[in-house]
Structures are given as structure tokens and as C-alpha cells.
């Protein structure tokens, strides 16, 4: 099927950020079983947790390619937390691609997943390397294990969503969801 000339096609002919971000970089992949498209995003992230380079590679439809081009451009110079929030806002991304992306939510989702996976790869690595006194759980918003425990105890929290509302932990790339779950179980004595 042909994608009509429009915003997505325009992005396609004016592609940005094809390739591999400078090393060391963090890579995220996504693939669709339904359509067979494969996408890869790589990010270079500075010491202030800011994305200073974002690149992609892809074998997929024009809408997916355009979405990756737009998304990688938008996350540059954003913190990983800001980038994660942006990646999860699929409606805004879709509307930025014009009418031909309107019924192509799956393609946009694939682009967003690759980006989120790359951010998660960074978060997991940053969490492992964290050498502060207090274990770091949410790297996007810099929330420690102790803070989360306190919030759960004092406010009697019992879900990830309530923890996120209370202290922002888990509001970014969500790579810390299993950890927050563990803390919830520990504190609530399960």
C-alpha cells in the first residue's frame, strides 16, 4: 500500500538521525510479530542524564520510519525522564505525523517501544552502577529505595500507581516497576 504524500512522507524524504549514537551508547529494540518490522534506537546519555545523541535503524513501513525520525529528534537534549514521558504519549506523536499515521497506531507504538527500551537499558545500567548509600530505584526521577519505603509506610500505599503518584517513582521508563513491586510486598509484609 502506498502512503499518500503527507507529513510522514515528508519526514521520510528528510530523514534525521539514521545510524548509531556515539559509544558508549544504550540500545533498545522492538519488533512486530504482526508485521515483521524491526526497529532499533541507540542513545548517548551525558552525566546529567541528558540525551545528547539519539539515532535509529529500521526495516519497516514509512510511518514507522517517520515516527523514529521525529521521535529521536524530539528527545535530544531531554532528560531520560522527559524522553520517557514523551515516548509514552502516542497520541501526540501520531498527530505530529499527519493524517496518514492516524490508523497506524501499531507502527507508532513500535517506534516508541524501541526508544523506551533504550532508556530502560540506560536506567538498568545506571541503577547497577549507582554507588550511593541508599539504593537507587527510579533512575528517571532519582527516587531511592528508602524514599519509596517511607512513602509506602506513612501513606499505606499498596499499588505501583499509588507509589508513582506519591513520589514520582515509576513515572518515566518504568524499568523499576518490578523493583517497586518487590518493595511493596516487603513493606506490606507479603
Amino acid at each position, binding site marked *: *500500500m*502506498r*502512503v499518500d504524500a503527507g507529513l510522514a*512522507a515528508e519526514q*521520510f*524524504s528528510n*530523514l534525521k538521525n*539514521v*545510524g548509531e549514537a556515539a559509544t558508549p551508547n544504550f540500545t533498545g*529494540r522492538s519488533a*512486530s510479530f*504482526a*508485521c*515483521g*518490522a*524491526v*526497529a*532499533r534506537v541507540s542513545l548517548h546519555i551525558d552525566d546529567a542524564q541528558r540525551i545528547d545523541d539519539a539515532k535509529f*535503524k*529500521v*526495516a*519497516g*513501513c*514509512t510511518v514507522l*520510519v517517520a515516527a523514529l525520525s521525529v521521535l529521536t529528534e524530539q528527545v535530544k537534549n531531554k532528560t531520560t525522564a522527559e524522553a520517557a514521558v514523551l515516548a509514552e504519549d502516542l497520541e501526540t506523536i501520531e498527530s505530529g505525523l499527519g493524517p496518514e499515521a492516524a*490508523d*497506524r*497506531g*501499531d*507502527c507508532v507504538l513500535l517506534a516508541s517501544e524501541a526508544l523506551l527500551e533504550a532508556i530502560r537499558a540506560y536506567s538498568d545500567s545506571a541503577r547497577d552502577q549507582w554507588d550511593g548509600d541508599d539504593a537507587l530505584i527510579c533512575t528517571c526521577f532519582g527516587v531511592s529505595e528508602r524514599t519509596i519505603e517511607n512513602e509506602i509506610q506513612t501513606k499505606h500505599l499498596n499499588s505501583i500507581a499509588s507509589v508513582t503518584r506519591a513520589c514520582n517513582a515509576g513515572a518515566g521508563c518504568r524499568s523499576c516497576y518490578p523493583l517497586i513491586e518487590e518493595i511493596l510486598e516487603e513493606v506490606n509484609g507479603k
Partner: protein
Amino acid sequence: MIYLDNNATTRVAPEVFAAMRPFLTEAYGNPSSAHSLGQRMKAAVERAREQVAELIGTAHASEIVFTSCGSESDNWAIGGFLEQNPTRRHIITTRVEHEAVRNLCAHLEKIGCEVTWLGVNENGELNLDDLHQALRRDTAIVSVMLANNETGVLFPIDEIGKIVRENSDAVFHVDGVQAVGKIPIDLKNSEVDLFALSGHKLHAPQGVGALYIREGLKLSPFIIGGGQEFGRRAGTSAVPNIVGLGAACELAKNVDGHDRIEHLRNKLEDEILRTIPNARLNGTPDRARRLPNTANISFEYVEGENILVQLDEAGICVSTGSACHSTTHESSPTLQAMNVPYTAARGSIRFSLGRYNTEAEIDQTLKVLPEIIGKLVEMSPYDEELKALYANRAQL
């Protein structure tokens, strides 16, 4: 614009338009009318019938019935014979037929017919032993295309017809839509009973087709109504289109152009395969067994839709076997049946040439294509696979 999508449809030839013109202006009668204007229309229809009959080599012009399109011809041939023979419910066809036959047979399978689907090898060719073994006493119809619309691979209908005739009572239907006007066809010396063709594939307008029905073969009507087409197909004859189809058949008989098209196709195909490392041919490399105008080439590890869009931007029209419909990505059933790996099927492009293509257009295509593929290769996440392909090529 460089139009390399002639298997999809073709431009109406100026000669064809000139022949049609009077029938779109002053000659507006109904060929069923008894007055002289009606009779003039009728004569034009009969002349067109002879022109079609001559191009495909039928014994009698009366064996040609005009329809609205190739799909109608296919549907009528298969459906009409089954209706006429209610005790025979076994059909043999192939996995690589055009949708007009493939989807019809899938539908017939759902409503109680038994269908044997013949597979193809990786070159897109049938194994005739499979056909032999599939034939049964109650086989009603064998339906096989002459030329595949995607790859241009030709099926040996003369040989197939003999096998069908010698081993069964089945009738033999051939979807000839993609072949007519591109290769010589001689039905009177074949065992073909039914043969479908479509005007717009050979420079006639869209909206007209024909079905060859071997003399003596009875088909139930597909459209019931008036007595047009000797009572075989009702509906007022589309005289301008029918005249156009006749003129297009006349034009196609002059085969001088065919060698030129084949030469251009060969140049395009050879150069692409020689210069682009991730290019691979779909369909048999034996050109004698393919249409002279078609080159179906996969660019591995890149996306056909991306290639199509970029070629379009460069003013070049092609088609791709990979169609993305939001949630499902259907790679072509023909390429699937040929076991083309999906990373290659996704990147398949069909170049189909026609009588109006020039060498300069082929040169221009060969100029822009490597750059487009190069950009997509750079973008592909299959870095390792592509690196290996390009390194191999560099060594040769």
C-alpha cells in the same frame, strides 16, 4: 513519469483510443437494436471479436465472449462450469494464482467444494507430477494461470492441458490475463477449454475483458438477463470498450515491440543484480520461462514500501509484494509459496515494462535505484547480514 507498473494496468494506446472515439461520440447505438445505427454497433463488436480471436488463436471467433474484466471471466469460467455440473465438486488450482482465482477457490472451498492447491518450487515452477496425482474421476475443473502477475513465471499450459485431458474428464481453465499481448498464444492447438483475458493489461481501457469458451462447452450464465453475446452473457455490450479491446489485440499482434521490451527488461534486471549486492531475483532465472516484460527483484533486509515511496518521489512507478495494512503485514502469497525468506519478500519490487518505455527511462531508473537502496541499507537494523552480503560481493 517513468511507468514501470504495466502488469498493474497499461496506458490506453493512441491507436486504441482513435478506434474507440467514434463509439463515444456519434456512434451511440445499442448493438441489440434492429436499426442501421444498432447494426453498425453490432458489426463493430463482431469485428472486435475476430480481432481478439485472432490474437489468441481460437478456431472460431464465436468462442469469444466479452465480459467486464478478467476477474469476471475467471469467476464465470469456474463458477459457471460448477453450476452446470452439480455432481462434480473437486477443483485443482495453484497457490500462486491471481486473487480472482485464488480467493474464488478459497470461497468455494468454504461452501463445500474440495480444492487441491498445487505448490511451486523456489523458482515459482509447478511440479507436473503433483498435478497428475491430484487428478480424480470427479475433478470438475483445473485452473492454472499462464503467466504469474508478480514474477512473470510462465506455466506450461500445453503440457498441463495434455495431462488434464489424458487423465481426467476435467475442463481446463487458464487465467491468461497477464500473458495476453506479451507472448504468442495459440488456443486452437492446445487443450485449453476456458481462457480469461483483460483489456487494460494490453493498452485497452479498464472495464472490458473476455472469456474464451471452447466450442461445445456449456457454462451456466454468470449474468442473467437479455440475450446479448448469443445468450451467454446478458447486459448491454460496452461497445466503445469492446472496440478498444479489439484494436488493442490488433496492435499486440505486431510483435516487433516485444523484443525491444525484453531487451530493456534484461538490461534493467542484469544491471540491478550486478550492481546491488542485496538484490535477488524472484522467479526462475530461465528467461524463456518468464514473461519478457517482468522483473521481480527483492532487496533483502530493506522495506519494499520504502523503496516504492522513494522511487515514486523520483518519478518512477513500480509495485511491491509487501503491503502494510496497519496491523497485518501481508507478504505476497506468491513469494510465500516460493519460500522466499520474509526478509527478502518484504523488500520485493516488481518492475513491469510496456511498449512505451524507453532506454533512457531504464537508464534513469538504474541511476537512481542504487542510491535509494544504499540509503535504506544504511538505515536497516540488519547490519550484520548486510555487511556479509556486501563483503561477499566486494570479493567477487
